[in-house]
């Protein structure tokens, strides 16, 4: 390294930062965002939260109702994740380089996954809402499609990462394709896959809230309802319950992950 390398590096860094600042200013003008206003909002937002988001004894009477909605949301995310995991497993086996049956099927599996993943869950929810109506099925299917997209990619990576040696060893013994998948691929990749499934359940509970606001189901609906009724005590209770549920599931899945990985 000589002096010029340092000079060049410094120049690159400067150009990079100027570009970032320019992009930020452009974005701010596109969205009418004022940084000073934004920063000034934060303290007032927190003061407002401290004053209004208080759970009183009165609100607790709504607890059974909210709990019911929360449980609906949790069940919806679990069901969407596990059913999606089953489909993703097949797509993952078809899509992975190690276990691919043929190139066309593999490309097809990857294409489906990419399509399902890159269209946001909100878009799926709005599309499905048109014909499925306001019930649990809409939210379930929206989460299902998004999860299939994500899990298929994760499963393909897990199977690829496990390596080809076990697959080759079983091929050499004359095992059939399904025997190889059942005895080599599944035992090797199952811990990784379960870890991804647990991660997706956590993510889906948060997405389910968003989907619930759009499709009128579960805890998202409860939040939206109280929010629009300006019943901020109930809003606080709903938020608190979501936080408790998410953290509990996170702790539980961290525990499982620690043992199996």
């Amino acid at each position, binding site marked *: 390294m000589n002096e010029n390398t340092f000079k060049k590096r410094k120049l690159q860094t400067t150009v990079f930062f100027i570009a970032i600042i320019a*992009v*930020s200013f452009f*974005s*701010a003008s*596109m*969205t009418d*965002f004022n*940084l000073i*206003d*934004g920063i000034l*909002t*934060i303290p*007032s*937002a927190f003061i407002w*939260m401290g004053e209004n988001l208080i759970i009183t004894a009165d609100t607790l009477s709504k607890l059974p109702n909210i709990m019911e909605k929360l449980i*609906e949301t949790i*069940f919806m995310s679990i*069901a969407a*994740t*596990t059913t999606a995991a089953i489909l993703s497993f097949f797509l993952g086996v078809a899509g992975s380089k190690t276990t691919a049956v043929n190139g066309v099927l593999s490309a097809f599996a990857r294409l489906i996954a990419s399509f399902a993943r*890159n*269209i*946001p*869950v*909100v*878009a799926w929810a*709005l*599309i*499905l809402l*048109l*014909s*499925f*109506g*306001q*019930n*649990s*099925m809409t939210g379930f299917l929206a989460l299902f499609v998004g999860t299939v997209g994500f899990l298929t990619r*994760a499963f393909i990576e897990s199977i690829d*990462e496990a*390596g080809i040696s*076990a697959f080759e060893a079983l091929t050499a013994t004359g095992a059939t394709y399904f025997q190889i998948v059942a005895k080599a691929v599944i035992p090797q990749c*199952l*811990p990784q896959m*379960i870890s991804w*499934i*647990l991660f997706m359940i956590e993510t889906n509970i948060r*997405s389910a*809230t*968003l989907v619930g*606001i*759009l499709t009128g189901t579960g805890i998202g609906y409860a939040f939206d309802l109280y*929010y629009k009724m300006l019943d*901020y005590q109930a*809003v606080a209770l709903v*938020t608190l319950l979501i*936080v408790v549920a998410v*953290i509990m599931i*996170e702790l539980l899945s961290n525990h499982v992950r620690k*043992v*199996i990985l």
Partner: protein
Amino acid sequence: MDSVYVKRNKAGRINIKAGNKVNSVINTTVISLTLLTVIAFLLFDYTGLDIGRAVVETASNLKTMFLQPAFSHFTWREGLYQLGVTISLAVLATILGAIIAFFLALWSAVNLSNRWVSKAIKIFVAFIRAVPTVLWVLIFAIAAGLGSEAAILGMLFHSVAYLVKAFSEAFEEVDKGMLEALKSTGAGWWQTVTHAVIPSTSTYLLSWTFLRFEINFSVAVAMGAAAGAGGIGFELFMASGFYFDLREVGFITYAILLVAIVLEMMSTKLKQRYFPSAVK
């Protein structure tokens, strides 16, 4: 040759017993998830659902959407502008988030900070992450009014929480010897950060920030639809919820898909270049 990974217990022995703990935990997890799924389907609220009709209708809707996309409530220019607004929301939330997360991560990395400060920040961040983004946006919307400020602040909170975790893990992996060497020359904390920590982690930090940008794009679409933050997400919400214009929904979906795929391709390249071993 890649070596085969063998699971070992604490004493370093290979576990060969049939009913070991790992297997029993895996089995319990699989069985309980299956049971919960079955219960979920029994508990679902099926009000007003005619599954056969709904599936047929959705199929024909999807056909109209994806095979005949068109737009009628906005022009090319407006459509591009709205897409630009969504991308801008994501850009601002990501850049501001990265700046704030950088400092918080310095204080939460155990090798650069006090143990208690680090713990406090980590708990705070876990709490922020547990609240869904849309709830943050809606809560900020009460204080700041609906608009870009509320949306960006709400998205910012989640971006900060995500990036603090990623950044502090990168900082914690900085070579101990390097920090010690600088300390022995009498360099202060800030000098250590600028001359050892930043140069050795900057590519990671930038990659993580870009990965977050990819996530923030789809979050920005969602916020437009669910929290009235504007941009292409709001157009999508209007097209499907108010105009019932499937062709327009199709057009908007294609636009979102295009941006998302470009972003994903870029981030896959980044991941292959900088994190060859990490899957996340």
